[in-house]
């Protein structure tokens, strides 16, 4: 038996929205401590990892680890019906083949319940090594979203280079080139405006802007985003969800152009 009640139901809605473009089917892994999702996109270029700790829920009960295979598109259809201030309750039998979702309005005057059929999805969890990264950048998520959106106009490959002066996002396309440099700004007044760069050595990597754009769908989940890079390994773009979870995206760099 799995049962979880999330007062702030919209968080779940945002999570689903932020992964559904990348991942069609995935397992919602429920364990005693957390709900997590890990899945690669169809092309095996990127990977999404989501974690939502039990602390995020008002009520959380999971008798035994359970993998609920869902289709993100269908899940998202159901969450479309969720009002922003609704409470969500998840329920699933251990051997059941459906996930029950209960949406309760703030004033308790409407209750909607849905049943989502589950799928059996074979997916082997990847062990993601906890590597120290050469560079990590913390910046406002809105800012990052804007940069990606803007650069996409010019081309489809984005070079992220992290150096002393700051982080440079550059793009080269048929119609021209563009660079956006973001300087470290650790002393901004509001915390959410801070840009913090922690760099061991300069790193420069190329990525497909299309994927970065998918990642920015998670912007609404968090005020700031953390980008961690090392040469030749996938970049990590993390959107923390308050204290109890995160949405992390991993993206493989492009093959070097010669």
């Amino acid at each position, binding site marked *: 038996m799995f049962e979880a009640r999330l007062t702030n139901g919209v968080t779940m809605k945002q999570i689903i929205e932020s992964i559904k473009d990348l991942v069609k*089917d995935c397992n919602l892994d429920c364990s005693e401590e957390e709900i997590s999702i890990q899945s690669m996109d169809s092309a095996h270029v990127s990977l999404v990892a989501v974690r939502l700790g039990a602390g995020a829920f008002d009520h959380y009960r999971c008798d035994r680890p359970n993998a609920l295979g869902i289709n993100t598109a269908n899940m998202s259809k159901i969450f479309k019906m969720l009002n922003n201030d609704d409470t969500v309750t998840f329920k699933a039998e251990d051997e*059941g083949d459906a996930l029950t979702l209960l949406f309760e309005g703030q004033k308790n005057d409407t209750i909607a319940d849905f049943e989502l059929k*589950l799928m*059996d999805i*074979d997916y082997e969890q990847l062990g993601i090594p906890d590597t120290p990264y050469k560079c990590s950048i913390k910046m406002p998520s809105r800012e990052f979203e804007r940069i990606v959106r803007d650069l996409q106009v010019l081309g489809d490959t984005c070079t992220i280079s992290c150096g002393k002066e700051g982080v440079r996002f550059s793009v080269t396309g048929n119609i021209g080139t563009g660079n956006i440099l973001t300087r470290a700004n650790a002393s901004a007044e509001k915390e959410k405006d801070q840009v913090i760069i922690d760099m061991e050595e300069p790193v420069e990597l190329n990525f*497909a802007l299309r994927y970065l754009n998918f990642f920015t769908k998670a912007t609404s989940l968090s005020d700031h985003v953390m980008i961690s890079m090392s040469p030749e390994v996938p970049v990590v773009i993390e959107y923390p969800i308050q204290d109890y979870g995160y949405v992390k995206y991993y993206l493989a760099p*492009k093959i070097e152009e010669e």
Partner: protein
Amino acid sequence: MDIRNFFGAKKPGGSKAKNSSSSSSASKAKESASKRKSPPNQTTNGKKQKQRQVEDDAIEVKEISPTDFFADAKKETKKKSSKTATPEKKPAKPQGKPKAAPPKPKADVSSDDEPIQFIKTMTPEKKKKEVVNIDDDGSDDKDEDYEDEVQDVTPTKKKPPSSRSTTPAASSSSSPAKRARAASPKKKASPPVKKAKPSPPPPKKETIEILEATLEKDSFDVDSSRVPEFMQGLTFVFTGVLENVARDDAMDLVKMLGARVTTAVSSKTSYLVAGSVLEDGRPYTEGSKFEKALEKDVKVVLGEKKLYGLCHLYHERAKKEKGITDAPPAPSKQAASPSNPYAKKAAVSNPYAKKAPVSNPYAKKSVAVNPYAKKAGSSTNPYAKGSSSKDQSSSSNSEVATKSSNDPNQLWADRHAPTHTREILGNKEKVSKLQKWLGSWERQFNNPAAAKKTWSKPGGPWKAALLSGPPGIGKTTTATLVAQEAGRDLLEFNASDVRSKKALQNGLGDLTGSQALNFGPAAGKGKKAPPKKLRCVIMDEVDGMGAGDRSGMAELIQMIKKSKVPIICICNDRQSQKMKSLLPYCMDLRFNRPNKSTMANRIVRIAGMEGMEVERNAAEAIAESCGNDVRQVMNCLQMWAQKKRGDGSNDKLTYKGMKDRQNSINKDEILRVSLFDAAKTILEGRKGLAGASPKAELDSLYRRTDAFFVDYSFTGLLVQQNYLKVLTGQRKNVVDVPDKEQAYLERVHDAAASMSDYAVCEHEIRSGDLNWSLLPACSVLAVKTGYHAGGEDGGFLPSFPEFTAWLGKNSSKGKKQRLLDELHYHMNFKISGDTQELRQNYLPVLRQHMFSIFKDGSDAAGIISLMDEYGLSREDVFEKIDEFRMGKKVPAFSDLDSKQKAAFTREYNKGTHKSQALVAEQGGPAGRKKKGGKAEKDPADLDAIDEDGDVDQESDDDDDEAELKKLQEKFKKKGRRGAAKKGGAKKTTAKRGKK
């Protein structure tokens, strides 16, 4: 049975003669070739007497019963073909027998001493004789028989039994050992052979041969045989037409008994089974197989009766062996092994017991679904080890499955899919080529140093590979395995994915430029990064990118150009129009169907793993019936296993059972046949049906009527084109034989009559009311034509069916009709007849007259005035009238001296002419003055004049010519594809109707 019985049957006349000829050993035959034509009668006669004596002697000797000989024979055969190797235990009996036998032979030998010598000296002569026999074979006569005997005798002395006829000669000259060998081959089954019996111990083999030769049976009942596959290890080749049994049935018989049947004679061949005549009526001795058999010392069995006899002999022998040894039941043939492992397994795995919802992604219970395998834009997921996706290709999965083979419902094709490239059946060379290509890909295209990035040149290097070939032969498996073995991350797109331009851009666009996401061993402290994960894209079924995948192909090509990742494309038909644009960008690897013997090995092995026993012949037959489609073979086997479990019968899969049930698992054979083969099937009528069972006859009839539908608009035309060829081929057999000739001519009549009925039906279908319900009647009438053409015994079409000439003829008929109409149009103010009249009466005279004027000298003025009188233009005379010559010999205007013509033209152009006026009147373009004739081709003009449908005729006609040309090209290029469209004026309308 007493051998003596067979003696009575001694001289079956003609057949005997043939036998004799067959026995000549190849080498001798060659030597003597030069001398062939002079048969030395004297020597023969002289010998005859002796022979007779010898024969008598021999008869006495013959008292030994066949079974005894078997004992000997057994041994011999064992030695010869170790395959039959019977357990050593038997020796006791056999040995005893042989010993008994020997003395007699010896006697013979002694008595024959002289002759032997004689023969030796005379060898050349003898050879001649033999050869002669071969030559006239058919005509046989006593003399020949005698000769045979003589020869036989001689051999007997030396090496007793050898097939009576020619062989001996050969052997006489050679060392005994050699002789023995030589002798064995000939065993030609003719009655006189019996004498050979005096089998002396050394050439025991021959004893069996002799017996074989002697024994004739009317049938052999496979069901009664108690020893399964007792003919295992023998190889048969068939030639000629057997009298009372269809060749296929005879082949089936020996296959059921465990023997192999091949098509060409080789040194491994044990017997050549010959009918007395070949399909085309020549005596079998003229066939190349027979000659080859002589050369290779292959024994010849003449006629089905002797074949049955042979079967009986082997059967007896096998039974005896079995009886004697008891413990090891059937030698070498594990056939009899009683316990069937299969039986046990049955309980374990009943695929049908529970139909697992293998492919329902929503069914939570289903174990096997890999959603990635099917979802659009997705791929097999290499990280998902446990998944056993339906996709045959994901071999990592099937490997797991094979090891555990837990799921009884799994398709065998998956469970036993190759798990390593070396296990792939056939196409080795292509597999290794692909491996090599993949191995060098990075170096070639992703290496900054080698900036050479050409890929569209015909000679490569290519960034993509294209595997093509028929379904079920392992293309996808190959691609997957090769990629996996190269350590690449695999992405597969197939026909169930959306592959439009947009989808490809989304799905592949970034992928072809990106590394695979890979969390290798964490990067060390230093610079050492984990190795990049390489990937590989498989585009399966690219020829299936259809209308729904808009611009998909173009996008794919663009991607190949840019790609930093190898792309393996797979298709069935690389000739397809859709593939044309892709071909230049891909390395071309054409996969062939693995041959059936390779497949048979694997089939037997896999069946063994599944606890099923399968005869090798049966395995080959399955492979054949599935068109060498490995996957389908697996499915068939599984189905078969299933059925057997259902029945509770544990029999192993025998060739016989296979044949009985083949219909239920056959791929629809006739649909795999080309148009031409279909026509041939129809044309040859009852070929091979002599003596066949009613069921076989009926099957054949159905097959022929079905064949008509391979392409119902063309088959009839091909039959029409070729049926007379079948008939003329038979003429030489009947000419001057009053009864037969009469019957023959009646058949010609019948065939022609049904062909004409066919034409009536066809006309009804194609014209006017489009009465398509007559199509089945057409099919039957075409088959009827073939039946009459072939006669009771079926016909033989000596060569590949000719492409129908009707299309061309019809087209030129249309053209001439049109020209005639034009001429008529020009002349009709002067003449009163219609076009028929014009053609028959005016034109010959007119052209004759004009021609004579031309010949006389250059009275240009005379001709011109004549032309003007009739309103003819220059083109009319020089081009159109020429079309109406009868025969090539008639002189043509176009052949006239060019100077003369030029002079005439100048003269003609000076004046103005009626024909030009006519054109102008009709509103023809002024510029066309000189080409007055052409102007009339304007349909408008014609419209004005004839309104009785000739216009249609003409426009159709033009279409036809173009279409015909296209068609012919198409057929030349790929005669095998039946998808032809129809040409022909008559048909153009019909076609519209069809659509």
